[in-house]
């Protein structure tokens, strides 16, 4: 007899429906899976056979053929175990044959229990957009993740026996529900601004970066607090909207980073890959392209500590996604596009030994060493860092022992206000924040007072700032003006923005 069960598989952050056809017919006992399956799918034969037996069902001693349609789509992973097992049971009359509009996704263990699989949220999300009212059968580990999506019924099962009982009508089960709003509790923000003493400059730079979506570079000796500051950027970014959270969770789901008890990524991601990372791990790749660190930091922060230690090709691989906000990965098997809109924060030492310009220790590097070290940050890459800030090593205990520090929440209020101004400014431009402005936007939106404009031109000349600094300064000045609620860029805003171009300054030499 022939049974048809629906299943699905994630493809990037989208999903494809797969029809699992199971035929149990006459012939030599045999179990065959066709329809472009990979090794993991082929191995489903052993898992399904054993799981059925261990749950007390008999595996048919006949010719079993499983077809995964469409046959042209490559199938990989263990997503189809549940559908294949139920298909066999349906074809042998253990459960009713007509299982309509039900999508089954789950891996089987040999004991018949269901294991979680990756990519549930993308599948549920794309099914919910379909006209037909699908329901999903999942492992109970995956149920909460699937339930985040509205407009689709999710059933989570512990094992095959529970599922069979449900299909036979013996065990009524209600769909898994989840309180979406409750997931958005921000009380557990780990790192708060108020824990950082002093560092007014670094904090201010973070606030500007958060408000305008600017990429940020911290330059400073070891132990000056660069990492500590960078970790606090997600906390002052505007809260994730549900739509953004689902987008982020989809990517994390594909990468297998979602756990059952925290099904939705509700905080902005902060990814800090080690400097030995390969370019593929950073931007994504593999035979079946998986998202890399840049996509995992979508809507969040990508922090490259010791940016100059990263391999040159790794840093250069960042250029396209920084420009496009997404990354297209092409491999022989398929081409995949993952979103990658993130705020990049880099840190580096001022010189190889780390102590150039430090008060307490003198630098032991030769000029040539310093120049070689700095030249590792390629011009085009440096060009994208709107804010470059010196973080000196200071003893803040005697500077600010009695001042109370502002908590992240207060800063976030200002950031959100500035973001609102930007949303109103760019409705038709296809950009969200000042950091994404191109030259034509800068010409249109960065109107400054006459004095401010004169100051900028004069200072570029007099302080020997490089020419490319001009637009960067205007962009940052725009954000500073937005933070203070001014329509035009004033002298103060330009003066402050110039302070954030430390690497553009040609010191006499050093």
């Amino acid at each position, binding site marked *: 007899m022939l049974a048809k069960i629906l299943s699905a598989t994630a493809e990037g952050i989208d999903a494809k429906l797969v029809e699992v056809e199971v035929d149990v017919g006459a012939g030599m006992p045999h179990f065959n899976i066709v329809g472009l399956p990979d090794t993991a799918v082929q191995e489903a034969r052993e898992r399904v056979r054993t799981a059925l037996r261990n749950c007390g069902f008999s595996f048919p001693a006949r010719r079993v053929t499983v077809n995964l349609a469409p046959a042209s789509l490559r199938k990989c992973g263990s997503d189809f175990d549940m559908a294949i097992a139920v298909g066999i049971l349906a074809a042998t009359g253990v459960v009713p044959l007509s299982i309509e509009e039900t999508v089954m996704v789950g891996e089987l263990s040999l004991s018949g229990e269901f294991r979680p699989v990756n990519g549930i949220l993308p599948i549920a999300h794309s099914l919910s957009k379909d006209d037909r009212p699908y329901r999903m059968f999942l492992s109970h580990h995956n149920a909460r993740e699937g339930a985040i999506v509205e407009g689709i019924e999710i059933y989570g099962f512990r094992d095959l026996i529970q599922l069979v009982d449900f299909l036979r009508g013996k065990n009524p089960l209600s769909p898994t529900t989840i309180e979406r709003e409750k997931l958005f509790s921000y009380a557990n923000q780990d790192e708060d601004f108020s824990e950082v003493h002093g560092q007014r*400059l670094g904090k201010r730079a973070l606030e500007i970066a958060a408000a305008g979506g600017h990429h940020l570079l911290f330059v400073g000796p070891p132990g000056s607090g660069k990492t500590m500051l960078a970790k606090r950027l997600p906390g002052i970014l505007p809260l994730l909207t549900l739509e953004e959270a689902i987008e982020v969770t989809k990517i994390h789901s594909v990468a297998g980073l979602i756990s059952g008890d925290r099904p939705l990524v509700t905080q902005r991601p902060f990814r800090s890959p080690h400097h030995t990372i390969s370019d593929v791990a950073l931007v994504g790749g593999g035979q079946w392209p998986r998202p890399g660190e840049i996509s995992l930091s979508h809507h969040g922060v990508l922090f490259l500590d010791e940016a100059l230690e990263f391999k040159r090709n790794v840093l250069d691989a960042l250029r396209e996604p920084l420009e496009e906000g997404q990354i297209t990965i092409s491999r022989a098997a398929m081409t995949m596009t993952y979103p990658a809109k993130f705020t990049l924060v880099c840190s580096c030492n001022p010189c190889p030994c780390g102590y*150039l*310009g*430090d008060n307490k220790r*003198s630098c032991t590097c030769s*000029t040539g060493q310093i120049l070689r070290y700095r030249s590792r940050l390629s011009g085009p890459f440096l060009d994208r860092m709107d804010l470059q800030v*010196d973080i000196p090593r200071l003893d803040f205990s005697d*500077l600010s022992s009695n001042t109370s520090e502002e908590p992240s929440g207060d800063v976030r209020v200002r950031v959100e206000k500035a973001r609102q101004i930007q949303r109103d400014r760019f409705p038709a431009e296809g950009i969200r924040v000042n950091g994404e402005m191109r030259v034509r936007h800068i010409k249109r939106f960065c109107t400054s007072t006459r004095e401010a404009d004169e100051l900028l031109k004069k200072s570029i000349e007099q302080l020997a700032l490089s020419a490319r600094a001009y637009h960067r300064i205007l962009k940052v000045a725009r954000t500073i003006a937005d933070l*203070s609620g001014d329509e035009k860029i004033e002298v103060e805003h330009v*003066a402050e923005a110039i302070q954030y171009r430390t690497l553009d300054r040609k010191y006499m030499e050093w």
Partner: protein
Amino acid sequence: MKELIYWVAFNHLTGIGPVRFQRLLDTFGTASAGWNASEKDLEKCLGPQVGQSVVGERNSLDPEKMVQKYTSEGIGMIPITDDRYPELLKTISHPPFLLYQRGDFDFRSHEKYVAIVGTRRASQYGRKVVRFLARELAQEGWVIVSGLALGIDGEAHRGALEGGGHTIAVLGTGVEVVYPGSHRGLAHEIIDRGGALVSEFVPSCGPQRENFPVRNRIISGLSLGVLVAEAPRKSGALITTDFALEQGREVMAVPGSIFSPASEGTNQLIAQGAKLVQNIEDVVEALGFLSGKKSFTVSTPPVEELNEEEKELFSFLDYPGLYTEEFLQKCGWEPGRFYRVLLSLEMKKVVQTGPGGKICLS
């Protein structure tokens, strides 16, 4: 002219320095005679090894073409017999028999030369000192001689140019090569402003480790005295002072902080009897001249040009400098105003930002 060609040609051969060249002149009378001498005679004069290499190399050179090429490129070739050759340099032992020169500077038209040398990795203090002294000396009509290296050397040239004076860069490379590359602009400015690049090495000669100490003898040789602005314990600048003492030149040094490793060498020079320099009168007097101008060691910024706000902010800054963060904290100003006034102070060149974001008096 004919003879000069062979002087230049011999300069291109390996193993021919001032000593052997003098021996050639003594033996054959003229350079052209030496050039065309037989292998046997050359071996007799220079020894078998050098003699053979001279014979081997001279066939691959076309002396006439070479000199034509240099002339068309504006490179001056000054043999020691020429009266354009610096008089002071002739007095040292083994002066170079040929100098290459780029730039119009005429050594006959000046008599006051002082060398300023020091470490390549100069501190803010060292830079400030040397720029100030070089500028003032240049204004007094002194020609500043230095080595175009990074750090103190570069600042000495810049200070001289600022003071509107002439400056001579003695290169450890050929005059066609500027090393370090980042000083290419400075080298051009030195030439454009009437100074010169000089070198005893073949014009296309690249940077070679062993050439730099050798040229230091020319730096001191061209000058009446050598001023060391900042030098750590082991520094090339101290090689120059050794040459200076050998050549009977005055050695002077600028004192530095006892806590600064960059000043260890200079402080030690003073301990050994070098003239301590606090202002340009010290330099001028040590070299046997009278200064017409009273100068001050501490150059106060032109405070009268500042407005009230700028004066107030400026008053918070003290000598060692402050990081922006400390500065902001110390003055207690609201950041917007602070940045605006700081930038205008910077534009008026009263303060400057150094590496690490430190703001110093300039």
